[in-house]
């Protein structure tokens, strides 16, 4: 049994299990922590698949920054109360589980038809594609072939930052003329 097989069979159950645990957890903070576990297992899969740069980015950006942001908002709003179990639409939960299972089966059938369960990846990925290290090889593709999209993402990030500042700033109530006169009167007295 090769190393990557052992890693896969150890981490795949953890990955699926933590995702299901996130789903069943009624406390939002616990759900967020299970999601962190899931993001770490996905990072390990990236490492096995020869994407060591994305492994680092996954841990720094997802497990680090994004989940801290989530936990921060949960704490800020104090929504770590348990949610009620009443259903607004009758049978919604059962239908959702049936449809979700349907999606999973459909995707697995499509994978079987598309690439087959026996297809193995070419062996010499690290020597050919990842020559000089994954980060360097990725940079070679990113800054030549995909240079324009890369620049566009910087515009996207700036727009997102401005949007958040606009959304999150408390809107000050416009002071009406009557109120202004009122305060002026009070100051005069």
């Amino acid at each position, binding site marked *: 049994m090769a190393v990557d097989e052992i890693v896969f069979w150890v981490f795949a159950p953890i990955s699926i299990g933590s*995702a299901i645990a996130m789903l069943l957890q009624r406390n939002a903070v616990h759900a967020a922590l299970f999601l962190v576990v899931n993001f770490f297992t996905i990072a390990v899969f990236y490492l096995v*698949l020869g994407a060591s740069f994305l492994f680092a980015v996954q841990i720094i950006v*997802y497990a680090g920054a994004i989940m801290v942001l989530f936990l921060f908002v949960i704490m800020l709003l104090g929504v770590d109360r348990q*949610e009620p179990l009443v259903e607004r639409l009758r049978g919604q939960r059962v239908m959702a589980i049936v449809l979700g299972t349907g999606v999973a089966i459909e*995707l*697995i059938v499509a994978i079987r038809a598309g690439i087959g369960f026996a297809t193995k*990846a070419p062996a010499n990925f690290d020597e050919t*594609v990842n020559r000089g290290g994954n980060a360097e090889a990725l940079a070679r593709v990113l800054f030549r072939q995909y240079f324009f999209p890369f620049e566009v993402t910087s515009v996207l990030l700036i727009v997102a930052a401005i949007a958040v500042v606009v959304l999150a700033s408390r809107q000050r109530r416009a002071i009406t003329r009557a109120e202004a006169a009122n305060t002026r009167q009070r100051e005069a007295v």
Partner: protein
Amino acid sequence: MSTPIAYFVVVSAMLFAIGTVGVLIRKNALVIFMSVELQLNAVNLALVSFSRMHGNLNGQVVAFFSMVVAAAEVVVGLAIIVVVYRRRQSASVDDLTVLRG
């Protein structure tokens, strides 16, 4: 590498389905948002697997871009949830009936 590439894609498909169920059954807007993140990650895993299978880095570049877009999307989405919470004192999607047609 002796693990068939399809195994990774199957894990990614299962994670995507779990995320779908999460979006459908949860009531807390934050947890729904986390399920969407799970779906995005599942798709990224599929992209990286396909990049390994085809022996080029285009899939990894697309996964990288999708991470950037996800970061921007999370920031805006959480800001919207905070604003909604300020107005209605609740993060449950059942209370958001003002948009009902």
